[in-house]
């Protein structure tokens, strides 16, 4: 099972990323758990300087932008 984290303290784009990630996981039928990390002290260890960020299996994949649904699907399934 994959572990997917969306990092970001409640800005509009962070929520958008979370929604898109949930859709991507559902549409690709990936077995994954999705977490939303809002506490800055938990975000810090990932060394992310711009939110929203996407972390898949503890690896930072995206920072500062919201990728398109297709790109997310690729990231999640690869």
């Amino acid at each position, binding site marked *: 099972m994959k572990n997917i984290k969306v990092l970001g303290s409640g800005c509009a*784009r962070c929520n958008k990323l979370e929604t898109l990630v949930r859709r991507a996981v559902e549409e690709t039928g990936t077995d994954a758990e999705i977490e939303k990390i809002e506490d800055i002290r938990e975000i810090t260890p990932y*060394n992310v300087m711009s939110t929203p960020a996407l972390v898949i299996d503890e690896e930072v994949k995206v920072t500062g932008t919201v990728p398109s649904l297709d790109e997310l699907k690729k990231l999640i399934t690869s």
Partner: protein
Amino acid sequence: MSIDPAKDNESSRQSAMIPIIGVFVAALCWILLYTHLESLADLAVDLLPGHSRARESMHFFVYEVPKVILLLTAIVFVMGIIHTFISPERTREILAERPAGTGNALAAVLGMVTPFCSCSAVPLFIGFLQAGVPLGVTFSFLIAAPMVDGVALFLLLGMFGWRIAVTYILLGFLIAFVSGLVIERLKMEHALEEWVRELQKTPSPAAALQQDHSWRDRIREGLDSVRSIVGKVWVFIVLGVGAGSIIHGYVPREFMAGIMGEEAWWSVPAAVLLGVPMYTNIAGILPVAEALIGKGAAIGTVMAFMMSVIALSAPEMIILRKVLKPRLIAVFATIVASGIVIVGFVFNLLL
């Protein structure tokens, strides 16, 4: 994945041309529309009944709303593309270990072109400190980023001409530069939250993703920022222009000049105080500024009001509270506010 890389390259080059042509066509339409706004607004207002005051207000509204939205769309698009060339990680690399002075100046300049959103002010702040960027330099960046950004520069240019735009930017730089230096001198490190102080100078490989951008991606990023920024800010524009058009049509000149004119020295600090709790985007505040100046308000006073609305906002301070103790927030707000008041006076004296 593709078997024939050369062929793949060819087709991707072709599909890359489509967005570029699209941008070109859009730019032409934009210019056509923008240069005819005045006459279109005249036409629209002529169709409306009503007495002269209401008409004057209406004209201001009908002309100003599309004008600001058009300007903002173009600027945000261009800035969105510029932002794909500069990441906060890159900026941090440039600023790390710089001495005070040069560091503060560089930070203020980079604040103008680095993508910044107040919602990621905190991770950015921590990221800077971790890499060993001095506290004062970090503040120079944080002050410059919202206040002297490219959007502000080009909107001012489009609405007030180059003289005011350049003066605004230079004075904005000065405030960011000096405030950062002062904070550095005050040695405020103890006013960081404990866990943040422990993170200072603990460089760790940044999660900088060196994404290779094609022009197609860059244009998409530009469009994305138009969608997210203009989509969010248009409400402020309509409200701002609404307030502006009421001022334009109904507020007597003598009244405005009396409270915001050059004789009323106290109006500069008053404008700054009034601006702090207000929170809007530069695009929303400019139409108000334009109407106020049209009614005889002193330029310095209006500038001070604008700067305070943009650079000192209650929501940003609440966000920063997570990493700063109240004392440092108070120091930060006081220094920036005094800087803005001084700028307001200088503007009033010079112009």
